[in-house]
């Protein structure tokens, strides 16, 4: 018996199937006639199908009951330590439910009135708990913080940023979780519509081979970081009517050597600058002149765009994508 149950726990599906079958056999063999009927039913395909259908309906009913009977209470004291989710909450009109924000949250300006509770690497658990939140929005990889919140019985919402489509998906689920479902859905619909507008507007013209750089040592071409073929930056380039030259590299960020830039021959280079206090001017783009064989350099298609909206995958993606589209296709946005 002990051996059987251990086997059932540790073994694969096949073992579990064996165990179930042996129990069924044990139940149905023996003198009790009603169980013999059950055993016969097992062999009848028609009965099996009916039983299966009944079971499906039963499971569905239970699921619906569970979902409606225990709706999670709308959150009224929310802490968001991720800039993107903070912006989402404000944009869907739930900013007044925030009682704390992350150290790096800067937009909208209202966040400056809220207490700061640390960020990705240094969340201040003590301060978070002292604000008595009924929902904490944290980053998916913050395992320690999750554990601490679980121990304190504080509900949390783990957020991870990925592609452009995930932004509106997050807005919808976050709206539902916080209790402003309609506003969340409306915001998500609007963003999707606006992105679709940009896509259709740029869709008809050519797609220049684009390199999107989001990090470089000023004055030189050292330590170039560019967007690879996954993530919201890549999605933004493609939506704005560009063809990412690193689309085949399935990474969000790519450490780029000058050799690879030469080999990929981008027709447009767009550099993003977003750090607070970064006073780099477009004059810094002259560093690219060291590689005149790059079509973008030869044809003076190296641009610099400044703004934090490029690195915060929140509601401002529309504005960011539009700026990219205007840079890639100035003729369409006159």
């Amino acid at each position, binding site marked *: 018996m002990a051996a059987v149950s251990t086997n059932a726990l540790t073994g694969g599906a096949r073992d579990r199937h064996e165990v179930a079958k042996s129990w069924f056999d044990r139940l149905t063999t023996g003198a009790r006639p009603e169980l013999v009927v059950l055993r016969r039913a097992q062999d009848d395909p028609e009965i099996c199908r009916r039983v299966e259908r009944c079971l499906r309906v039963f499971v569905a009913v239970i699921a619906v009951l569970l979902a409606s009977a225990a709706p999670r209470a709308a959150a009224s004291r929310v802490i968001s330590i991720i800039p993107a989710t903070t912006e989402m909450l404000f944009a869907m009109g739930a900013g007044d439910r925030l009682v704390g924000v992350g150290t790096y949250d800067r937009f909208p300006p209202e966040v400056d009135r809220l207490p700061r509770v640390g960020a990705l690497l240094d969340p201040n658990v003590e301060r978070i708990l002292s604000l008595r939140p009924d929902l904490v929005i944290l980053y998916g990889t913050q395992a320690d913080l999750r554990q601490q919140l679980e121990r304190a019985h504080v509900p949390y919402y783990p957020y991870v940023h990925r592609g452009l489509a995930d932004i509106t998906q997050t807005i919808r689920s976050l709206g539902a979780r916080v209790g402003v479902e309609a506003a969340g859905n409306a915001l998500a619909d609007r963003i999707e519509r606006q992105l679709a507008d940009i896509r259709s507007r740029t869709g008809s013209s050519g797609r220049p081979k684009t390199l999107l750089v989001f990090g470089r040592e000023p004055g030189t071409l050292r330590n170039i970081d560019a967007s690879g073929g996954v993530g919201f930056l890549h999605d933004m380039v493609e939506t704005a009517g560009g063809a990412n030259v690193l689309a085949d590299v399935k990474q969000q960020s790519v450490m780029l050597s000058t*050799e690879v830039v030469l080999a990929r021959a981008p027709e447009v280079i767009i550099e993003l600058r977003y*750090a607070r*206090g970064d006073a780099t001017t477009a004059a810094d783009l002259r560093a690219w002149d060291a*590689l005149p064989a790059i079509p973008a350099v030869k044809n003076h298609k190296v641009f610099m765009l400044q703004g934090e909206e490029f690195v915060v995958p929140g509601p401002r993606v529309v504005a960011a994508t539009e700026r990219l589209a205007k840079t890639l296709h100035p003729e369409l946005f006159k």
Partner: protein
Amino acid sequence: MGFAALTIAVCLTAPLIGSTPIHISRVFDRTIPFADNVDAQVFFVARLPRVLASVLVGSAFAIAGVVFQAFLRNPLASPDTLGVSSGATLGAVVVITFHIDTAVLGVSAVPVATFAGAAGALGIVYAMSVARRRGTSSTVLLLAGVALSAFLGALNRFIQVIGDYTDTFRSIRWMMGSMDVGSYTDIVVALVPITAACVAIGTLPRELDLVSIGTEAAESRGVDVRRAERVALVSASLLTGSAVSLGGPIPFVGIIVPHIVRLIVGADHRLVLPAAALFGGAFLVICDVIARTAFGAAGMPVGAITAFLGGPFFLWLLFRRMR
């Protein structure tokens, strides 16, 4: 001799290897203007500076390692033991975090600040070696160096924490090291202090031999230990600072290459010094070739390759000797 041949062979082949196929005849084809010649730009802008920087940085770290290990009489001593590398890193982190680099238009201030940081740490090391009274063991200097290194490391982390996350990302990126220098100016600038330091150390092989046995033994043979020590430590620190400002704090080369070389050529510093310089350079060039080719378009920081390759190689060498 073998080392010289290896280094020359590596330096000649390395620029020919890369993620992009180029035609060497096109590279040197004068009829095509440079601005339109992709192959020539790959060769002269993307590859050749990398190879030269790698040779220089690898040699500098290896020589510095030999000198530190001999004078501190400690096999675990490395170019970072006395805090010079941490000082250099601090310079870079400060400049990156507070955006001081954007003030100097057109010139990256990062290598300059790195060198300044190294010089600051070097000043402290020098003061320590001067303040050392006769009879104090090199262990004191070693411990003081470890303490300074830890202190500067703590400052680094402090600045990274108070800085913006995007700047922290940049400084971590810098700390991984990169040989993609992209211009010859940086190399020439680093070459000056590296040459001076090498010349100074070149006068010291006998002193290095004797001091690594023991200071008393050296003094009894008429070596001015304190003077030799000062020259050696300052030169080795200069090498470290220049190497870090050119390529970043590449781990492993400075600590293991001297041991690898000693396992092969023995303990005579007249052989160890040039062999370490040559092998260190060749080793880093090979690591950089792997870093820029083996992972497709997405490069790999060379610092990750040095230990990944060098660690098993050193273990193999060590156990082969022991058998």
